[in-house]
């Protein structure tokens, strides 16, 4: 919200306080200043210039060459506006100036071969109005060479304030001035109203009826007759323009002015356009179409509160007026609406229509229910002054149940207990008084405070404590530089994942974070997607059901930049629907914690000591095995191999622990890769961390080191190509005695000389006995026995036989 410093000064004396101080203190008190626009700084290099000569630009029909002086020097300025002429006083942007409209910085430039040393500006370029019909021609009595901000009174400072949703009271100049009054302990001056009313009685001219007093607890109206619609005076236009509003006409501008002065939204109806001169606040009985004054047709439903006349709706309550009753140039008589609406009702309508206005923004944050009379009368008074109107006698105020101020007690020792610091009682009382809270009762230990109705956010003792400390200043509370630690158990739920990350990094993987929000199509390809009810784009319409699409998209993005050799991992949550229909409970969906490994491209690049090599299935397997070894050394997992593949994998393997699947992965199928536009092989492994985390490691015990030598024997089998290594190994282990401790496949070999459909598998066996040294003869006996059995089992031959 934009607030003008000059405007603020009408309610509080800030003459001895710097802009910076105001900004710092407001920010500290919770009204964060996001931007300060100091017009003097904005117009630093703008002066009143005088056009001495004007000539046609030799190379451009629509441009003129002007000689402009600032009283000292003469500048060549090229101007494109048709209305520029010699003898005019004009706003001149000199070299170094920045044009407010578009932040264009003026420098010496050549335009179609001619030098230009400045710019003659329009009002819009100066950011002081919407007028861009031509350059701004200044008044005769301004002095050439003077700064533009002095001559035009462009000396305001505009604060852009981020008002938090609890502070509906601060959405106006008086509201901000009230906080400043408490911060600087200076009195607040509220403009007094003295209305001279005409003889006619309001009840002869208009009537109001509320049919839904829940959503409209109060409707206050004043009537002004014989108004003359015209442009507002300069001071009012400037005020509105400076805070970002477009001046329209005097009546509309007055309602906007009062809104930004008091925070109460007003609406001015053309009284003569109200059927039966009647206002009825009610809901429609069925859906209707209604055209608002921005000329848009909107659908109104039965829960939307409407302001109606004797036969039809004339405004969406608290949101926007209707085209059928708006003030026009022909308007003579005006009904000023100054009502109080239920915040939740206005919010629902505003949200549903996607229509947020200055009025709805305030009503949905709750406006003071007791300000409407002041705001309406203030507007009426200004209509006398600025529109030659006549205010008719009396008022209409339908307010069946008056909203009373709340009372809250405050214990001084509670303030100290919460803050850990004592604020003197006098300061507490002064702050509350300056914020216009009244002290009803007080004793040494506590006070009872009456909360003004413009502060609906203050309901409890703790709210008062915040009021006191935010004005007193958080910076005045000393930080306690000690920490008392209760020695209860520390729990670190993140340890497992942290360890996992360390392991994967040590194995050469790069961690990625991909977007959990995805296209519905991608999410449904890999699971049963949960969709977002209110997606902002279709790219983020579903929640991921798997980490795989994110991985493949990441790989694709890297391939696009010629990065082809990739090892990635991601740790994250995935979400799948448990059943169809609306999600009403945690049991309706499954959230799982996952790890995904992904590798593609080359495992090793060409080096002086080795050749390059592509990643394959066995690289993936090794990474999985290493990771599990680091996490669970000695724990037995069972791997199941699937050569036939499934929907995602050309071939894959699954890893189980005690019958539970902990992971699955392999080579991604070609059609899946094509879907993601990937043209090289990708291998991924998907691990369920929820199950993995539950695996308990038994306490590690030291194993005595071997005292007796190992005996090693090698042999190679020529065996049917289609027999798996794992089957051979399993058989050997099953059929040997316990001195065989290790078996390793160290060579695989296929060649024509071996024969068709066979391969050579070379194994190394390690034998030892924990109790004694084995003799060569002993080992040889077992060794040859194993070989014989294996040969028979697999119908194999011993190589070299």
């Amino acid at each position, binding site marked *: 919200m934009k607030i003008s410093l000059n405007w603020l000064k009408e309610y509080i004396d800030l003459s001895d306080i710097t802009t910076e101080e105001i900004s710092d203190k407001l920010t500290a*008190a919770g009204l964060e200043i996001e931007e300060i626009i100091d017009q003097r700084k904005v117009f630093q290099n703008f002066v009143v210039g005088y056009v001495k000569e004007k000539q046609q630009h030799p190379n451009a029909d629509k441009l003129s060459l002007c000689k402009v002086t600032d009283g000292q020097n003469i500048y060549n300025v090229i101007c494109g506006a048709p209305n520029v002429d010699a003898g005019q006083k004009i706003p001149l942007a000199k070299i170094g100036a920045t044009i407010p409209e578009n932040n264009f910085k003026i420098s010496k430039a050549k335009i179609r071969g001619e030098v230009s040393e400045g710019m003659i500006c329009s009002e819009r370029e100066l950011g002081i109005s919407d007028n861009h019909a031509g350059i701004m021609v200044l008044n005769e009595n301004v002095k050439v060479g003077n700064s533009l901000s002095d001559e035009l009174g462009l000396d305001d400072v505009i604060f852009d304030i981020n008002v938090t949703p609890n502070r509906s009271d601060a959405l106006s100049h008086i509201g901000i001035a009230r906080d400043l009054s408490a911060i600087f302990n200076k009195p607040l001056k509220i403009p007094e109203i003295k209305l001279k009313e005409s003889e006619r009685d309001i009840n002869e001219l208009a009537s109001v009826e509320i049919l839904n007093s829940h959503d409209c607890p109060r409707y206050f109206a004043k009537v002004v007759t014989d108004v003359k619609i015209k442009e507002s005076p300069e001071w009012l236009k400037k005020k509105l323009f400076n805070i970002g509003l477009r001046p329209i006409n005097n009546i509309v501008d007055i309602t906007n002015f009062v809104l930004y002065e008091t925070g109460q939204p007003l609406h001015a109806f053309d009284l003569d356009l109200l059927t039966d001169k009647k206002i009825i606040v009610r809901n429609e009985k069925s859906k209707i179409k209604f055209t608002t004054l921005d000329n848009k047709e909107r659908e109104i439903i039965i829960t939307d509160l409407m302001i109606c006349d004797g036969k039809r709706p004339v405004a969406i309550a608290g949101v926007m007026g209707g085209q059928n009753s708006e003030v026009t140039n022909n308007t003579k008589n005006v009904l000023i609406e100054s009502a109080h609406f239920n915040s939740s009702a206005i919010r629902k309508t505003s949200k549903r229509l996607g229509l947020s206005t200055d009025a709805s923004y305030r009503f949905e944050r709750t406006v003071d229910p007791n300000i409407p009379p002041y705001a309406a009368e203030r507007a009426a008074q200004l209509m006398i002054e600025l529109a030659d109107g006549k205010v008719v006698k009396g008022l209409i105020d339908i307010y069946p149940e008056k909203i009373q101020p709340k009372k809250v007690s405050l214990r001084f020792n509670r303030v100290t207990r*919460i803050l850990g610091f004592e604020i003197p009682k006098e300061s507490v009382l002064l702050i509350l008084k300056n914020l216009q809270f009244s002290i009803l009762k007080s004793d040494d230990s506590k006070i009872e405070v009456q909360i003004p109705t413009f502060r609906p956010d203050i309901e409890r003792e703790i709210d008062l404590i915040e009021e006191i400390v935010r004005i007193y200043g958080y910076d005045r509370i000393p930080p306690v530089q000690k920490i008392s630690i209760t020695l209860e158990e520390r729990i670190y739920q993140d340890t497992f994942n942290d360890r996992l990350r360390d392991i994967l990094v040590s194995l050469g993987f790069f961690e990625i974070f991909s977007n959990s929000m995805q296209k519905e199509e991608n999410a449904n390809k890999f699971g049963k997607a949960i969709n977002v009810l209110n997606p902002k784009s279709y790219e983020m319409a579903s929640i991921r059901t798997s980490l795989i699409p994110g991985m493949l998209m990441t790989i694709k993005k890297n391939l696009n930049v010629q990065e082809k050799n990739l090892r990635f991992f991601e740790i994250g949550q995935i979400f799948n629907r448990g059943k169809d229909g*609306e999600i009403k409970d945690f049991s309706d969906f499954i959230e799982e914690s996952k790890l995904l490994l992904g590798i593609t491209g080359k495992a090793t690049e060409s080096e002086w000591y080795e050749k390059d090599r592509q990643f394959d299935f066995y690289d993936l397997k090794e990474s999985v095995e290493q990771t599990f070894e680091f996490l669970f050394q000695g724990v037995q997992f069972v791997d199941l191999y699937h050569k036939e593949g499934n929907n995602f994998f050309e071939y894959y393997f699954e890893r189980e622990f005690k019958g539970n699947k902990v992971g699955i992965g392999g080579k991604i199928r070609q059609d899946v890769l094509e879907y993601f536009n990937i043209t090289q092989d990708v291998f991924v492994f998907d691990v369920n961390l929820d199950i993995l985390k539950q695996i308990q490691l038994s306490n590690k015990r030291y194993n005595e080191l071997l005292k007796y030598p190992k005996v090693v024997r090698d042999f190679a089998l020529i065996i049917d190509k289609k027999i798996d290594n794992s089957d051979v190994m399993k058989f050997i282990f099953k059929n040997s005695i316990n001195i065989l401790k290790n078996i390793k496949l160290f060579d695989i070999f296929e060649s024509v000389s071996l024969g068709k459909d066979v391969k050579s598998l070379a194994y190394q066996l390690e034998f030892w006995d924990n109790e004694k040294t084995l003799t060569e003869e002993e080992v040889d006996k077992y060794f040859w026995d194993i070989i014989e059995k294996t040969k028979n089992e697999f119908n194999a031959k011993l190589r070299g036989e």
Partner: protein
Amino acid sequence: MLEQIKKTLTDFDTEILELNSSDELETIRIKYLGRKGILSQLFDDFRKLTGNDKPIIGKTLNQAKIDITNKFNQVFEKFKSGTKASDFYIDLSLPGRKSLVGSKHIITQTLDEVKNIFKGLGFSIYEGPELESDYNNFEALNFPDDHPARDMQDTFFVSEKFLMRTHTSPVQIRLMKEKKPPLRAIMPGKVYRNEALSAKSYCLFHQVEGLLVDTDVTFAELKGTLVSFAQQLYGKDVKYRFRASFFPFTEPSAEVDIWWEQQGKEGRWLEILGCGMVDPNVLLNVGIDPEKYIGYAFGMGVERMALLKYGIDDIRLLFDNDIRFLKQFISV
């Protein structure tokens, strides 16, 4: 016998360096490695040994066989490519053999820094689900239904009552419901905002929230804790300010800014975290008596800190996972 082995090794070394032709190479192979060669004889002798030192001798002999075989193979390779053994030249400037390197994402690295500081201050670490109930994410945290406070956080709703959590605060609710005070924990995790992607905002980010509930907690202590945190992260001389703010779940609430100066740029206040005393309504919602217990809470965005620290001006870079970006943060 050990002497014999040693001598064999020395002899082999001398002979292999002096040889001139591949014929001589074959002679050496037969002499040392052949079926009836020196090593084979040594193994025969070894088998007949009985003494205590048999294992040691066996080991030495095995190693000698490996060494001789390796050297022989090396020289054999060289001969194949026409180099003599005496031409051996060691180029120490060749690059070392590569092993793989990887890295943790800078989001993780930044998160780790934050976690370590709070672990040092005695905080536990808790996690919770990302798909949450409206109750845990909003209602229990004192966000009234249909209140503009809800607009502060654009939400991905998946049903009327379920949503992608907009902050890690629901973990506070879960923790306070599960355990009795005293409580001291931080809750790191992913949170979601239904916003269009831009350089400044992403639809998800990581947050760390902290919660402390005990009988004698004060705002001054909260301030002390956060000042200590800021000093550990941004240096002892960090300039900071606490300013009033609004969060439905804390009262009083504040935001903390630090003064940030980058070379060649004007200094400015930068918000690094939000904090406050746990609102009594929140304590009541989880069955903790607000007269007896007081709590404080704070929260910060991890991505923001990472962007600041490394001078990154587009948050989307963090989620693009371009390997050229990730490789810049192998060491930080």
